[in-house]
């Protein structure tokens, strides 16, 4: 029995629910040395900015228990080089591509959307809201529902209607549901969570912060329970909104937790640093888990853990003949 792994990110169909997480697969070429990128549900690019960015000073990385901190600071070549070299490379190969963008002002996000609006090969646009808002003393957009909403509304109004706009949220907030709701009300077609919560490590030899940038984003298995909780809460409050779940996914079992919590797409980030083939392995493991539970379609598992115990899977078993597409 093969499991139907297709999923929908808003109205866009993906062959399977596994995508790379923004900033963890660069622009795809590096991973292409290891496997055929068509086997991904989608590739998500690092967050593209208007100007080229050199990022933060090194050290940019510190290992923490079951996690790591990074302070890359959106290093990248800027939108011009992206449109010239990186996106066409993906587009020509027909690789499903979620383009992530980051900016310091609403105007900058809008301008990025404008530049991408007519570019071929943009499957969806993910808005990285974990950037400091230059017009609000550097307060991160994702931490303020109204600032996040302003970005989303503007980008949504600019982007082609058939390209879903995905708002990417951070967990460093008192109430992720209210930020999620603000973004959906502003026109977000889907939500993605979680971006890295802010963390820090101190080098007890040097008696100084381990990262040159002092603080950095925490990723990896350590954040998995925070991320599953965010997806759960948002799916409970906004059950109709497609969610990309990510944070600490290392195995198909972790991915399955996100699906059961309500995600229809699952992002893989830090796991790629450990295993370049992580996405393929996770997809296979997830499929095996679904099959072992008698679930014939990924779609049937999305949000399943919200339903009363026992009821849903049994129902699916009975319907099994019908539900084969």
């Amino acid at each position, binding site marked *: 029995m093969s499991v139907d792994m297709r999923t929908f990110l808003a109205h866009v169909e993906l062959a399977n629910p596994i995508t790379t997480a923004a900033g963890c697969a660069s622009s795809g070429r590096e991973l292409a040395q*290891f496997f055929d990128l068509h086997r991904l549900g989608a590739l998500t690019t690092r967050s593209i900015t208007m*100007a080229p960015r*050199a*990022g933060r000073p090194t050290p940019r*990385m510190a290992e923490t228990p079951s996690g790591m901190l990074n302070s890359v600071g959106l290093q990248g070549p800027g939108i011009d080089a992206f449109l010239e070299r990186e996106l066409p490379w993906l587009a020509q190969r027909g690789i499903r591509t979620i383009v992530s963008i980051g900016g310091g002002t609403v105007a900058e996000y809008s301008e990025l959307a404008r530049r991408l609006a007519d570019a071929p090969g943009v499957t969806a646009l993910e808005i990285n809201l974990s*950037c400091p808002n230059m017009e609000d003393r550097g307060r991160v957009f994702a931490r303020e529902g109204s600032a996040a909403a302003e970005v989303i509304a503007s980008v949504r109004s600019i982007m082609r209607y058939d390209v879903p706009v995905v708002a990417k949220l951070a967990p460093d907030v008192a109430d992720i549901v209210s930020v999620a709701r603000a973004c959906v009300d502003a026109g977000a077609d889907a939500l993605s969570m979680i971006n890295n919560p802010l963390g820090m490590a101190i080098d007890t030899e040097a008696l100084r912060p381990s990262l040159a940038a002092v603080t950095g984003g925490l990723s990896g298995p350590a954040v998995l329970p925070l991320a599953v909780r965010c997806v759960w809460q948002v799916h409970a409050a906004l059950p109709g909104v497609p969610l990309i779940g990510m944070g600490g996914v290392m195995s198909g079992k972790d991915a399955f937790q996100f699906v059961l919590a309500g995600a229809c797409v699952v992002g893989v980030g830090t796991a790629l*640093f450990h295993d370049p083939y992580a996405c393929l392995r996770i997809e296979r493991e997830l499929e095996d888990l679904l099959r072992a539970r008698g679930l014939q379609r990924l779609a049937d598992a999305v949000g399943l853990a919200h339903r009363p115990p026992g009821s849903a899977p049994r129902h699916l078993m009975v319907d099994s003949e019908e539900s084969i597409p």
Partner: protein
Amino acid sequence: MLTTRRVDAYHALTVVAPGIAERYRPGHFVSVAVGGAYTSMVTRRAFFIHDVKADYGGTVELVFTTGGPGTAWLAERRARDTLDLVGPLGRPFPLPRDPANCVLVGSDYGSAVLFPLADALLARGCRVDFVIGGAEAERVFGAMRARRMAETTTLTTEDGSLGLRGTVTDALPSVIADTRADAVYACAPMATLRAVTAVAMEFDIPVQVAVEESMACGIGVCMTCVLPVIGEDGATRMVRACAEGPVFRGERVRFEDVGTIPFDALGAPGGGARHVS
């Protein structure tokens, strides 16, 4: 994994890895998963490949020193344990087209990567001379093997317990002069590479350095391992040690600016880029 042994202050591991051995060229490194199943250590550890042999379809040997928990775990591995390796990674040392006189400089485990390089250079008819150092005698790796391969081998220790007292950089100028060197190859900590590069530039000969930067992925996707390097076009870019390196032309690396974003680097704050996240 095949064997594990101690070599002076170092541990050496031989791993059966035909896929890596086959594509290997000197200067390549591998990344090793540490801690086993359900470990709390999520990042791989990078190690230069010291040796490649054809036995068992192809083996690679790593040489390392223990510091933190990852290397401590590796040091506890026993023959027949399995090890999870990704490689070969990085850009290897470029070799001179024509026979040339090459000085190979290594300190600590850095010298481990120089032996297969020496083999390749000798195969091209180059002259090879070694300068190998360490803090103390037992941290000087590969002295015997160097002596067998090279025209001359100069050893240095900081405490004077073996060879000359001092660092490899102290010994380098006279070796370059004596051997009429055409090129220098070096693998050592950043500060030593910086000094070695300065010496080579004084003699106006090219120098290839293999650098070490803290790496989360080793395959070019995470952007944590960058350092400022001057490109062909004269512009400084923050380039990845794992993908564009680990081998660079020494004079291209802005050693004094490692750990910073030089103001004139492409995309530096103020250099035109907005300052987001």
